[in-house]
């Protein structure tokens, strides 16, 4: 809206953010103005003209999207129209932040800053880089959007699916970052997982009918539910099979299972929904031996037909091993070795190690664990793989 008028994404985005914050602070006292959207634009335009850059607003960790007034609270007669407009502006900012012309790291930083409302300091801490570096990363991302002349409006019908996929991918990457073990003093990297859940909830409120948005939210909830059991007291990784399932978050599981069940029954199935379904099967099992592996195998089969991701085939091999025995899974892994994307990937060797261990081939399993340990870029993972190899001897 303002972006269209002023043609400057950065300024418009800051101004919209400030106007929304002002509205959130003012409306409870003064009541909702007759034309909330017009009022917002007026406030935002005034701020832009004055070039107000309030440090206070920058420091405030407000979530613009989540704090928006729900549709049923708008009192103006044209309530639906007003809500639509507001909704569109928020979504437009999100689509721009996750624009495919940005690299993933830039898109992540810009989304957390502009839509999540995190401060630059908080984002810098989360990614363990100096604040000046993160400030530059965010500002370059904005410049790039400006330079690429992406219009400040919702993607067209033809672009819609692809652009939404970019948004969901960025949210998914933010969630995954939350699984890095190290922590800064203020914002733990683990908090990024919650940030991603918060943002995805907000996107779901804006796009309640999209099945993949719901699928991604369910996947996050069902994965986050296992977090308390994933690491031991020294930060060591505990594999799914050995986790204390009483530590899993039952509320998150219930919410995630309800969401994915309702979503799968409703519309077009997509990759996030299938991954959420796999996670739901795990989360509902009392133990690894009670897990419905044939169902997981079938879900990965569907997922494999839908995506060209070799990690899916890798997971399907493990599910096949759990269903039909390790020999079947090992045969499938051998076939994957010719995929250049996997050949030197630690996860291929880690999966083979597990299946060799299942098959009772201790020395070959230990060797594969050690190969995987040499290749991984995650310290807790390396610790886990080395421990596993050492236990087997050989």
């Amino acid at each position, binding site marked *: 809206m303002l972006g269209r008028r002023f043609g400057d994404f950065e300024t418009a985005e800051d101004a919209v953010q400030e106007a929304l914050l002002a509205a959130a602070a003012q409306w409870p006292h003064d009541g909702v103005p007759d034309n909330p959207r017009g009022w917002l634009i007026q406030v935002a335009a005034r701020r832009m003209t004055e070039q107000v850059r309030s440090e206070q607003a920058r420091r405030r960790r407000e979530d613009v999207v989540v704090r928006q007034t729900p549709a049923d609270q708008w009192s103006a007669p044209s309530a639906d129209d007003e809500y639509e407009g507001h909704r569109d502006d928020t979504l437009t900012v999100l689509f721009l932040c996750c624009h495919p012309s940005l*690299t*993933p*790291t*830039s898109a992540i930083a810009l989304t957390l800053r502009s839509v999540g409302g995190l401060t630059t300091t908080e984002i810098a801490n989360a*990614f*363990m*880089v*100096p604040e*000046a*570096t*993160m400030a*530059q*990363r*965010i500002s*370059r991302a904005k410049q790039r959007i400006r330079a690429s002349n992406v219009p400040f409006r919702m993607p067209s019908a033809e672009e819609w699916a692809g652009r939404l996929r970019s948004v969901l991918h960025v949210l998914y990457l933010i969630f*995954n*970052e*939350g*699984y*890095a*073990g*190290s922590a800064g003093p203020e914002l733990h990297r683990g908090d990024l997982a919650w940030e991603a859940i918060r943002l995805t909830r907000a996107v779901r409120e804006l796009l309640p009918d999209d099945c993949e948005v719901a699928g991604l939210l369910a996947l996050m909830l069902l*994965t986050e539910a*296992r977090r308390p059991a*994933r690491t031991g007291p020294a930060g060591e*990784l505990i*594999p*799914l099979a050995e986790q204390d399932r009483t530590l899993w978050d039952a509320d998150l599981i219930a919410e995630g299972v309800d969401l994915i069940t309702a979503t799968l029954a409703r519309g077009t199935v997509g990759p996030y929904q299938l991954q959420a379904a796999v996670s739901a099967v795990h989360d509902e099992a009392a133990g690894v031996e009670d897990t419905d592996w044939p169902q997981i195998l079938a879900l990965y089969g569907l997922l494999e037909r839908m995506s060209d991701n070799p990690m899916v085939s890798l997971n399907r091999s493990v599910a096949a091993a759990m269903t039909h025995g390790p020999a079947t899974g090992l045969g499938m892994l051998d076939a994957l070795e010719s995929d250049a994307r996997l050949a030197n990937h630690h*996860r291929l060797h*880690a999966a083979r190690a*597990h299946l060799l261990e299942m098959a009772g081939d201790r020395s070959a399993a230990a060797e594969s664990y050690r190969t995987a340990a040499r290749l*991984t*870029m*995650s*310290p*807790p*993972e*390396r610790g*886990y793989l080395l421990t596993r190899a050492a236990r087997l001897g050989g």
Partner: protein
Amino acid sequence: MKYIMLMQFSAAQTDFPGIDTWSAEEVKAHIEFMGRTNEELVKSGEFVDAQGLAMPDHAKIVRANGGQAPLVSDGPFPETKEFLAGWWIVDCETPERAVELAAAVSAAPGPGGRPLNMPIEVRPVMSAPPREV
């Protein structure tokens, strides 16, 4: 992904005289180049850290076996043919970009303004999130 770029001096692999023998202008040009490099890394959103180390004369090697008092030997260590002069940590999108950055600092100006062609060791910093297994 974060990468460390180690400026590893080695008598065998460098063919320029020590910086303490350079002219004032040569030293100045070198230091300015390093300063500019760091500024550009901040601007590109890739800078994480850069440190120069004191000369090996100031080094101490400490060893302890958990029982007796630790054994401390003072530098310089004439048998050492290589020493770490400093490092950068950068956060960049691809391994190719890390190599590109290392190449840029390898060619830092030395005597006569000629590129030093220093060996820079590039290694990923382990910081990936672990996957559930």
